[in-house]
């Protein structure tokens, strides 16, 4: 008599667990206990069932987690790298972004307004965001002028990434000129006095 009763209770509990499992599996959203309770029917101790189910899944590839007051199946966090391997996609940085980065590097600390003044064009917010995302720039101090604009400076990661020891190693304008990076595109090669091509270095 008692045996029969326990078996029945047992079977009902097992069936509740099955249904709970299926409901949580099929739902696109985490489910709260009230919703689950309504689906299981009266007399189901949803909380206890959920705890039992979570126990069963503990340590498995899929785990039952509580998200706020709601419950959901999730793949085990430690498996994430195996499920979603990281893949690096190489992309070109826009010219505007490279130039902005260069100006921050050379003029830091520099506010966005100043960058725009130097570049002569508006800087989209996305550009600074992008550079910050790459951890190349970070906000510096606010400038103590009206409006207290935020300034931008380069990070250590910037030095690291570009193989610089310090900002002092950034080539100066004269170095750039000497390296031919300020050369105008050759147009008319007018013979100037002293016509030597390398005379510019002196200026």
């Amino acid at each position, binding site marked *: 008599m008692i045996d029969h009763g326990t078996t029945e209770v047992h079977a009902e509990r097992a069936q509740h667990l099955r249904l709970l499992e*299926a409901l949580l*599996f*099929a*739902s*696109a*959203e985490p489910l709260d206990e009230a919703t689950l309770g309504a689906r299981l029917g009266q007399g189901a101790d949803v909380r206890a069932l959920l705890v039992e189910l979570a126990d069963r899944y503990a340590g498995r590839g899929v785990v039952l987690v509580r998200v706020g007051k709601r419950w*959901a*199946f*999730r*793949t085990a966090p430690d498996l994430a790298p195996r*499920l*979603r*391997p*990281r*893949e*690096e*996609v*190489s*992309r*070109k*940085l826009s*010219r505007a972004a*490279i*130039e902005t*980065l*260069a*100006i921050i*590097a*050379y003029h830091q600390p520099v506010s966005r307004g100043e960058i725009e003044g*130097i*570049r*002569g064009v508006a800087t989209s917010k996305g550009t600074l965001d992008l550079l910050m995302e*790459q951890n190349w720039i970070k906000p510096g101090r606010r400038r103590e002028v009206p409006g207290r604009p935020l300034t931008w400076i380069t990070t250590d990661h910037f030095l690291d990434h*570009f*193989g*610089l020891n310090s900002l002092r190693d950034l*080539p100066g*304008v004269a170095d*750039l000129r000497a*390296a031919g*990076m*300020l*050369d*105008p595109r050759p147009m008319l090669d*007018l*013979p*100037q*006095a*002293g*016509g030597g091509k390398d005379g510019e270095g002196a200026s």
Partner: protein
Amino acid sequence: MTAGSTFAEDVRPPGPVVSEQLLLALDGFEGPIDLLLTLARDQKVDLTHISILQLANQYLDFVAAARRVRIELAADYLVMAAWLAYLKSRLLLPEPEDVGDEPGGAELASALAFQLQRLEAMREAGARLLALPQLGRDVFARGAPEGLEAEQTTVFDVTFYDVLKAYGEHKRREETSTLTIQPLDLYSLEDALSRLSHILGSLPDWVTLSSFLPDRSDNLLRGRSALAATFAATLELVKAGQVELRQDGAFAPIWLRRAAPREGAAPSDCEGAA
């Protein structure tokens, strides 16, 4: 068609009289075969034991009745009626001896029976298929699949050179934006003419052209333009008969002097053009 009605009058069909309901449902049938299958079911026997002859009669009756009630009846039904009338005749008449390849009445009847059985079988199969637990209705997939696509991290392909170059380009633009084009400092033909005419009066004898050049060795461009302008100016003066030119050989110095007022001896006359 006449055959159909004739048969319908000659042989009373043993089957049930065409029901009004069936007539009304005519639009619901998907063609003659569908109708035949429905009629066959009316025989209430296993389709494998169906009497094709009886079925043909039922169909012909039906078509005849339908044509009495409604004049228009799709051509397919009439074609089928004609075919069944033919089949019926083949079934009732003794098989002719000389048919050769043509299928006999029994063969045609069994082919039609098979066709009906198969269609019935497919209908049942369709119903059983749809009774299966269906995904999204009875059985569910994971509601919130995490997905297995690789997580993409963007790596920007920028070298230090790119940064420097960008700055250099920026600097250059900055410089060129304030650049004013300076006039070229050239020695003009007019300058040379006035200078030559000025000096010429005081010349006693042959002098080299280069001694007329202004002293501008600090500016190569101006020096060269002075040479060109002075030479052009002397040519002008030669043309005007005020100066004589002489050159003793290719690339040799060019000599000039004031022209004598119409004297013969001018050894350089022809050379002056050189």
